Structures are given as structure tokens and as C-alpha cells.
């Protein structure tokens, strides 16, 4: 959610992607490449097929691809064509059916094999046992564009941006409460506030969700943080929220997303995300904000932590993040938080207070929420 840079790359920079895949194939000795296109992007199929066919006709895909720099009019061709310098590689398009979990590399491979998109048991890893148990590399299309750029320029040029540990540039899909949403290519390690000013956010921001629902809600006081592999890691999703947005609605949306996208393989995530979503629905329906409901707050904290710690895959190691960060950021005095969905109704009877005696007398498990 919030990432659309890949769609732009597939639409407008497809040759860069395919070139990167071809360079990669030559490097690792692969003969088959696949573009896994998420189901929602099926409208791109004709465009991709056309581009692949065009490159086949030009000799850039298929049998006997020639290594070296070739321009279309061949005047600056630096390669000769002995067979020792040519290799075979072709790319096929595979279309998914619209499951977020199929973006995970092993679930993606399972999906390509016609099976349910469920992350595999690791080890073994895809590099040794991947697609059809063959050695497979799985990379994002942005990475393949970088490969093309580096091959065309140099590694040293790439290292001019960012730092040694966080090299090169990163694409960010910026959206939300700003007047200049879009794709921004920035050096790795760019602080959050810089991208915020580039996309002309409104003055009154609550924060930025960096890295999608699995990522981090960076509050305005933390906008100095750098977007790189260490401080605030991101796949490119960048969403701005101003003070008109309720933080609770945001985390409810994200938590519901994780429940909807759960593959259902493991108990912790399958049941855990369902329970978490139900909790948030209850909070929304009640007149009591989470800040005043300590038992429920502790309960959803435990639940989110359980999902994060005990699930089978990396996706669900972060499914509890929106809720956990929300609880962390709870400020009783801040009216942006809390979940008074219907503030006109104030009950004169406090159900929780009335039940508190019987609850504490009931069982040893004092986390029971009736």
C-alpha cells in the first residue's frame, strides 16, 4: 500500500528492467527470466508482451544475445559476434491473482508454480532451491533498473550518491496530504523532512508512514531520521497524513489490511490478525478511547507482539507494527489520538467500571475482556 513506483517503472522504464534482468542472467548463467505481474496490473500485459517481442526481434532476448554495448544503428557497436560472447536468455510474463503475500519471494515462487501463495520453509533458500526447485534470484524491478544504470555508468558513479553502506538512490512513491505527490528519486539516507518539503505537504502534519503498513509512522518530531537501511528502512512507500486524519483510523485500515492479506497458513497470523481487527472495531464502536482502557491496551499490545514474534513469515513479523507504534505514541492530552467515533453519544452507564469487581474476582487470567 502506498507504493506505485513499480507500476511507473513497468510502464515507462520497461526496457531498463529487461536490460537489467538480461545483464543479471548473463552474470549468473540463467536462461529463463520471469516477470511476476501482480493481478491488479493485468492491464500492463499487452505493453509488456509487446516490449519483450520487440527485444526478441532486435536480438536482445532469446537465443544468441550478444554481449556488449549495441546501439540501434550499430555504428558504435563495440562487440564482435563470436559465439563465445553470446548467450541464451528469454523472459516470460506470469500474472498473479492479487495477493499481497505473493510479493514475498518464496510465496511468489509458489504462486508461479500454480500453488497457494504461502511462504516456504527456509532453509533451503531460493538461491539454491527456487522456482521448480532450481536456483533462482528474485528481485524487485527497481533493483534491475539500478543494475542497468550501474552497467551503463559505473559502480563508482553509483556510489557518488548515498554512502558506502547505503549506496545509490532510492525511488519513493509519495502520496497523501501533499500537493505534489509522485515518484521521487533521492539518495539513500535522505531525511524524511526533505521529501516532505519536496512534495509540498501542508503545514499541519501528524506524520509520515514510511515503508507502508509494515513500516514506521514517523511523527513530525522525528523528521530528521534518514531513509536508508538502518534508521527508517523503506521499500519506497511514503504517505503523508495531516491533522485532519485520525491516527486510529489509519492503524485500523492497516490492521484490517494485514488480516485481509494473511495467507492463513499459520495460527498466530490467521487468528491473531482477525482478533486484532475485532479489537479495533470494538474500540471504534465504544465511546472510550484506548488511552482510558488499560486492560484492552495491554491485551492488544500482547496480541500484536504475539503475531510479530511467532508467525511463520516476515510479513507477519510486522503485522502488529501499526498497533504497537500507536500504543507507543499514545498521548492522553493529544486529541488527534483516541477513537471517539460518535462523540455525541456519551453513555451514563460505564459498563467496564460496573464489571471490574466481578472481573477481578473471576479467574486468574485477568486479561479477560468480555
Amino acid at each position, binding site marked *: 500500500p502506498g507504493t506505485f513506483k513499480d507500476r511507473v517503472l513497468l510502464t515507462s522504464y520497461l526496457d531498463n528492467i529487461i536490460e537489467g534482468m538480461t545483464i543479471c542472467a548473463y552474470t549468473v548463467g540463467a536462461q529463463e527470466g520471469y516477470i511476476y505481474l501482480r493481478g491488479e496490473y493485468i492491464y500492463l500485459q499487452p505493453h509488456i508482451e509487446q516490449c519483450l517481442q520487440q527485444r526478441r526481434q532486435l536480438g536482445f532476448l532469446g537465443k544468441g544475445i550478444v554481449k556488449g554495448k549495441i546501439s540501434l544503428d550499430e555504428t558504435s557497436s563495440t562487440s564482435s559476434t563470436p559465439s563465445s560472447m553470446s548467450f541464451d536468455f528469454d523472459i516470460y510474463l506470469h500474472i498473479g491473482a492479487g*495477493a499481497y503475500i505473493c510479493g514475498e519471494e518464496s510465496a511468489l515462487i509458489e504462486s508461479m508454480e500454480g500453488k*497457494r501463495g504461502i511462504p516456504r*520453509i527456509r*532453509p533451503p533458500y531460493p538461491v539454491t532451491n527456487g522456482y521448480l526447485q532450481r536456483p533462482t534470484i528474485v528481485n524487485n524491478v527497481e533493483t534491475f533498473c539500478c543494475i542497468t544504470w550501474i552497467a551503463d555508468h559505473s559502480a563508482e558513479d553509483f556510489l557518488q550518491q548515498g554512502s558506502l553502506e547505503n549506496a545509490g538512490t532510492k525511488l519513493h512513491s509519495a502520496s497523501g496530504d501533499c500537493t505534489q505527490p509522485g515518484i521521487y528519486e533521492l539518495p539513500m539516507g535522505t531525511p524524511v523532512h526533505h521529501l516532505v518539503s519536496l512534495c509540498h505537504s501542508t503545514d499541519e502534519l501528524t506524520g509520515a508512514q514510511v515503508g507502508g503498513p509494515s513500516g514506521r509512522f514517523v511523527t513530525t518530531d522525528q523528521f530528521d531520521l534518514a531513509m536508508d537501511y538502518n534508521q527508517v528502512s523503506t521499500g519506497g512507500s511514503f504517505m503523508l497524513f495531516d491533522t485532519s486524519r485520525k491516527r486510529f483510523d489509519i492503524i485500523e485500515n492497516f490492521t484490517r489490511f494485514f*488480516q*485481509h*492479506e*494473511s*495467507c*492463513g*497458513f*499459520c*495460527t*498466530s497470523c*490467521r*487468528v*491473531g*490478525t*482477525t*482478533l486484532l481487527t*475485532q479489537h479495533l472495531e470494538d474500540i471504534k464502536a465504544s465511546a472510550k478511547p484506548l488511552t482510558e482502557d488499560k486492560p484492552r491496551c495491554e491485551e492488544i499490545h*500482547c496480541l500484536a507482539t*504475539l503475531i510479530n*514474534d*511467532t*508467525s*511463520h513469515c516476515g510479513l507477519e513479523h510486522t503485522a502488529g507494527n501499526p498497533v504497537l507504534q500507536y500504543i507507543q505514541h499514545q498521548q492522553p492530552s493529544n486529541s488527534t489520538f483516541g477513537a471517539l467515533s460518535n462523540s455525541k453519544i456519551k453513555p451514563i452507564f460505564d459498563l467496564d467500571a460496573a464489571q471490574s469487581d466481578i472481573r477481578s474476582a473471576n*479467574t*486468574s*487470567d485477568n*486479561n*479477560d475482556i468480555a
Partner: protein
Amino acid sequence: MTLHNTEHAITIRSNPKQTPSEFTLNGKSTPFSSGQSILEAAINNGTYIPHLCFNPKVSAHGSCRLCIVNVNGRTLSACTTPAEPGLKVDSNTDTLQQQRLRITQMLFIEGNHYCPTCEWSGNCQLQAIAYDLGMTNNHYPMQYPKRSLDASHPHILLDQDRCIHCGLCERAGKELDNKHLFALSGRGIDSYLTITSDDGSLKTSTIDAKDNAANICPVGALLLKDDAYHTPIGQRLYDTDAISVIGNCRPEDQS
């Protein structure tokens, strides 16, 4: 928790020709053979780790999440993690036991588990683990899902109220009986077991009461008919012995 009765419980996949290596389990040096998972090595050496979706006769799944252990600081399922020399594994910390309790409670509230009338009560591994973990209530709200019951087959019953999505019937069919009898399908909380047959019912599938798949369910979901309530309460598998003592097994293993 030590495992007393190992003979009938486990056939461990191991290669005696390999040089055994060792890892640390709960501070104790534990040998393993190449290819074994942490769970297999632990059970082989008398340390019980709660589990439901693991059975030594078929490949590991890693779905129930009960066998979670701490491996060098990370929480992983013991059945899918290969034993390696030098690993530092903790399997019975308070946190892990608490997490296992919550996961067991999740399994109970996810389906419709009515122990008092269930034919498998007393033999049920889910029930036995719940007792072993000290479960006294559901903790989470019951979900009351709408699940199906298939009594079409003359000898086998499938009550999906009780299915815990362990996939053992699916794997046993494929790997032991050479039949694609079952498949877990759907996504998320709406996942369910499907039957490979013309009309999706057990009656027209190729399952037989003698198949491994029909005799591997750890709970009372896939049952043989005409086999209920034969054993008096008090003499059932887990009536007097905890599952952490006698392990995950079936009544027929005892005879």
C-alpha cells in the same frame, strides 16, 4: 519435561552413518544427526516440545506454531529449523510457554471445539496440549465459524468444526498413500480443507479407512466411524498420562 515412552511414538529420520554433532538445548548438550530438525533431535533425546502439525512419518509443516523455540535469540518453529552444531536453543522459557498457551487458545476459539461430546476427547492431542499448558479458559472470544460436516463416506467422518489446518491428512495422502486426497484452500481466516473428488465429498474420493491419511489426524476432525466412545473415560490415551510424557500418538500405537 522428559519423554519416557519413546518406542511407539517416534520413528526419527536419521542417518546413522553421519557423524553426530551437537547443539545446546536448554543448556544441555544435545546430539543430532545430519538432516534432523531441532524438534526431531529434541524428541529423540527425551525433551518434549509441544507440537501438533508435526508427525515424523511426513514432511514438516510449521503451521501450528506450537513448537516455537528461541534459537540464538530468534523465535522459530523447531520442526522447520535444521539442527546445526553450536546452536543455542531454549524450548521452555516462561515466555514461550505463555505464547504456546495463547496459540492453543487461538486454535480453540477459531473452530468449534465441543470437547464434552467429541468422539476423540481423551485421545485428542489439542486437548492434551491444552491440559499440559494449564489452559483454563478461552481468553479470546469464540468466533463460531460456519464449518461443514461430511458424513457421506460409509467409514470416515470429516467434521471441519474441529480442523486445525495442520495439513497432516493432506501430506499423509500425498507422501504415504500416493493419493491427492485433501488440500488446504482459501486464504486467511477463511481457509478450509477441500476434498479431491468429483463432487467435493468424501464419498466419491479415493480415500480408504486403512489409508495413512485417515489415521493421522491429531484431533477429532477426521475420524473413523463406528469407533466412538469404546474406551471408558479414565482409560483413554491422555486420561492419566500427559502428552509431554507419552508424546503425540494415537490409541492404536499403544496396542
